[in-house]
C-alpha cells in the first residue's frame, strides 16, 4: 500500500519562468509538506512534454533533474501527453521503493496560439487526424455532436459545466482563473472554436508544475486504487466515439482495487480538457448511466454544494492545463480535500476521492482513488 507523503504545486499561470524553475518550486513544496529531504527519495518518476516551442530544448529532463538534485538515483520519464502526470503516478506505484517523487513540469504558454495548437496536435495521429485538421477542439466537438444527437444533451449543459468549474476556480489560489468572475452569459457568448464548442468549453494552456511524494510509511491519505488503460489512437476507429473504453477499464481496475463503487466517491477531479469530456466521463466512470451525464450538471449533483462535487480545483478548464503536471495537480487537489485543507472550496466530510487523467482523445487514461486514513 502506498500513502501520500507530501504534495506541492505551483500556481498555474502564464508566468514566464523556465520549466526547471516551476519544477523546483513544486518539488520544494512537496518535500516541505512531507517532512522528507532529497536524501530520503529513492527514485523519481517525471512527466514532461518535450515541447519544441518554448525555446528550452531540454529533451533529457530526467538527467537535468539529477543535476538539480546533485544525486544519482533512478529517474525515469513517462510521456503520455496530457495524461502524463497520471501515468507517471501509476508507474511510480508499481515500483518497490520506499519514497518516490512523482513530478509533472511543463511550459506551454510561450508561443503563438497557432504554434501551441500545432504542438498539442502532435498528440493526434499524423495521417488521419493531423493531416485532416483534427485539432483537439475539433476532435471533442465531434464527440459533443454525437452525444447531443444520441442523448439529447446540448450546449447549455456544457456551458453549465464550464460555469461550475469557473466558480470553483474562483476559490482556488493556484488556479489560473482565481478570483476571476466568469458569467454564464460570457461563456455562452464566447466565440465558437469548433462547432458546437465555444472558447469557454476549452481548457486553457498554462505553465506550471505539480509534485507528490508517495511512500510506504502510513500517512493520512492512502492510494487505494490505481488503474490505467490505453485505447485506439483515433476516436473514429472505435465502435462508439462517445464511450471512452480506456476510462471504463482504468476505473474498473481502480474501483476493484479500492473495493469501492462509483456512488462511494465523495469528490472527484476529472479531465475536463473540454467540457464534453467531463460530461462523458460522468458516464464512463459510472457516476451516471450512459446518456444521462447531463442530468448531473442540470440537477447540481457535481457542484461544490452537490452530492458529488467534481473539479473543485476548477479543473483543466479554469485551474489551467499545463499538460504533464495536470494529472498530479489532480492528486494534489484530492489530497487537500481529504485532509480538509481546501478552505472555501472544501467538500464537507470527504473521505474518498477520485482523479481521472487523460492523454489524447481518450487514448491513455489513468484513474486513481485516494482514501482518508
Amino acid at each position: 500500500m502506498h500513502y501520500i507523503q507530501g504534495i506541492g504545486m505551483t500556481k498555474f499561470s502564464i508566468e514566464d519562468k523556465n520549466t526547471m524553475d516551476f519544477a523546483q518550486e513544486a518539488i520544494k513544496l512537496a518535500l516541505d509538506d512531507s517532512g522528507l529531504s532529497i536524501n530520503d527519495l529513492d527514485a523519481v518518476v517525471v512527466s514532461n512534454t518535450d515541447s519544441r516551442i518554448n525555446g528550452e530544448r531540454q529533451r533529457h529532463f530526467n538527467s537535468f533533474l539529477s543535476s538539480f538534485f546533485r544525486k544519482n538515483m533512478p529517474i525515469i520519464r513517462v510521456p503520455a501527453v496530457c495524461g502524463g502526470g497520471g501515468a507517471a503516478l501509476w508507474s511510480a506505484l508499481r515500483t518497490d521503493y520506499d519514497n518516490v517523487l512523482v513530478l509533472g513540469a511543463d511550459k506551454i504558454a510561450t508561443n503563438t496560439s497557432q504554434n501551441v495548437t500545432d504542438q498539442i496536435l502532435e498528440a493526434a495521429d499524423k495521417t488521419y487526424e493531423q493531416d485532416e485538421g483534427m485539432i483537439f477542439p475539433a476532435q471533442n466537438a465531434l464527440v459533443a455532436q454525437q452525444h447531443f444527437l444520441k442523448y439529447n444533451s446540448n450546449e447549455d449543459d456544457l456551458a453549465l459545466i464550464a460555469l461550475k468549474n469557473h466558480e470553483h476556480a474562483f476559490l482556488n489560489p493556484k488556479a489560473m482563473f482565481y478570483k476571476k468572475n466568469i458569467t454564464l452569459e460570457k461563456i455562452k457568448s464566447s466565440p465558437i472554436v469548433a462547432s458546437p464548442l465555444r472558447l469557454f468549453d476549452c481548457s486553457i494552456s498554462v505553465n506550471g508544475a505539480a509534485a507528490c511524494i508517495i511512500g510506504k510509511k502510513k500517512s493520512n491519505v492512502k492510494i487505494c486504487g490505481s488503474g490505467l488503460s490505453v485505447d485506439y489512437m483515433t476516436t473514429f476507429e472505435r465502435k462508439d466515439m462517445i464511450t471512452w473504453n480506456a476510462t471504463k477499464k482504468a476505473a474498473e481496475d481502480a474501483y476493484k482495487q479500492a473495493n469501492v463503487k462509483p456512488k462511494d466517491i465523495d469528490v472527484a477531479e476529472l479531465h475536463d480538457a473540454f467540457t464534453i469530456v467531463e460530461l462523458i466521463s460522468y458516464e464512463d466512470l459510472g457516476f451516471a448511466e450512459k446518456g444521462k451525464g447531463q442530468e448531473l450538471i442540470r440537477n447540481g449533483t457535481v457542484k461544490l454544494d452537490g452530492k458529488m462535487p467534481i473539479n473543485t480545483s476548477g479543473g483543466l478548464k479554469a485551474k489551467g492545463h499545463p499538460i504533464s503536471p495536470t494529472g498530479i495537480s489532480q492528486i494534489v487537489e484530492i489530497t487537500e480535500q481529504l485532509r480538509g485543507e481546501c478552505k472555501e472550496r472544501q467538500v464537507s466530510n470527504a473521505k474518498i476521492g477520485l482523479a481521472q487523467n487523460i492523454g489524447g482523445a481518450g487514448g491513455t487514461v489513468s484513474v486513481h482513488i485516494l482514501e482518508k486514513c
Partner: protein
Amino acid sequence: MIIRWVCKKCSKEWIYPVERCIYCKDNVEKKISRKLKVVGFTKVNIPSVMHPIIPYNILILEDENGNRIPKKTIKDYEMGDFYEEESSKKENAVSIVKIKYDVDIAVEEALHLINDLDVNESSKILIKPNMMATSYPYLAITTNPKTVSAVIKYLIKKGAKKENISIAEQCIYAPFEAALKKTGFEQLCKSHSIKFIDLSKSKFVEKDIGGMNIKITKEVFDKDLIINIPVLKTHLLFGISGAFENIARAVSKENLLQIENLAKERKIDLDDVIAKLHKFLPKYITIGDGTIGMEGNGPLNGNPAFLNYILASKDPVAHDAVFNELGLFMRKSRYLEIANKLGLGENNIEKIDIAGNELNATARELSPAIGSKLMKI
C-alpha cells in the same frame, strides 16, 4: 475513400498496412470503400500551423460497413449527405490525393481522378524521375522510389508490359552510378526488372530554342507515354521545382551547364528558356511526388517538408501552378505565366479543375527558397 487492412480469416481490421494478421497469421488484404456518408461534422474557426486557412470543416465519413474517417473540407455538408470525389475529364485537371499510409493507392487514385491513363500492352513508356544528386530518398532531393514503384504497379495493372517501361534520368552534378545506388533506383529497377537509361549517354536531337541550339534526348520522342515524376520542392531560381524543372533534364548536360552559365551572366532569362523548351517536348503526364517534398532552400539545401500528398495532371503548367498555391508561396513562378502565354497549359488557379482533395483544405505555408550564406553550392 476509406482503406482498411482486413484479415481474410478472422476479419480483424487495421487503419494502416499490416503484412500479416497478428492473431491468426493469415494474409491481410486491402479493402477500399468509396460510398461514404456524412455522420458528423464540425466547423473549425482557429488556425494552426498545418491548417492556416479558416474556417474549415471536418466531416466524419462512414461507409456501409460502419468504418469511419475524418475528412477536411472547405465545403459545407449536412448530416446524411453523400461524399464523393469525382474524376475530372478536363485536360487541365490536377488531382490532389493525401497519402493514407499507402503510396500505391494514392498514386492509383491520383491518376484515376484525372481520368486514368490510356495504356495497353504495346505502349512504350518512359518514366522521368528526379535523380539529380547522390542523395538518400528521405532528403527529398530526388524522387522517392516508392512513388515510382507505385507508378510502375499502376501501369502493369493497366496492361503495360515491363519490357516496354523504362526509367530515364541524367545526373548533372554527380556520378551516375553512385546516384543510382544511393537514391534507391538501382534496387527499384532490380525489384521490378525495369531498365534505367542514363540520358547523358542517349542520342540527342537538336532544336532551336530562342536562338540557342539545344540538344534534347531522343528517348522522349519515340515513346507513347512519358510520365514525369518530379519531387515537389522549392527552388532558388524558379521558386518551385515541379514538372518544368524536372523535365528540363531531357536536355543534354552540356546545354544545361551552358544555360546555367548564361543565366548567371544574365544573358538569358531562365524562366523564358524553361517555358519555351516545352514547345519542343512531346506531351507528358506529371505525377508530383509529395511523399516527403522539400521546403526552404531547395532544390539541394532545403529541408524535408513531409507533405504527404501526390499530385497528378496532364497539364504541366496547371500542375506547377497548383503546387505553387499549395505551398502558399508569395512568389508565383514566372515561367508559369510565360508557358500559359505560349499555350502550354493553364496557370490561372481559378480555371484549373481540382480533383480529389480541395486546394484550400490541403494548402499550408512552406518556407520559400530565399538563400543563405551557409548554403552549399
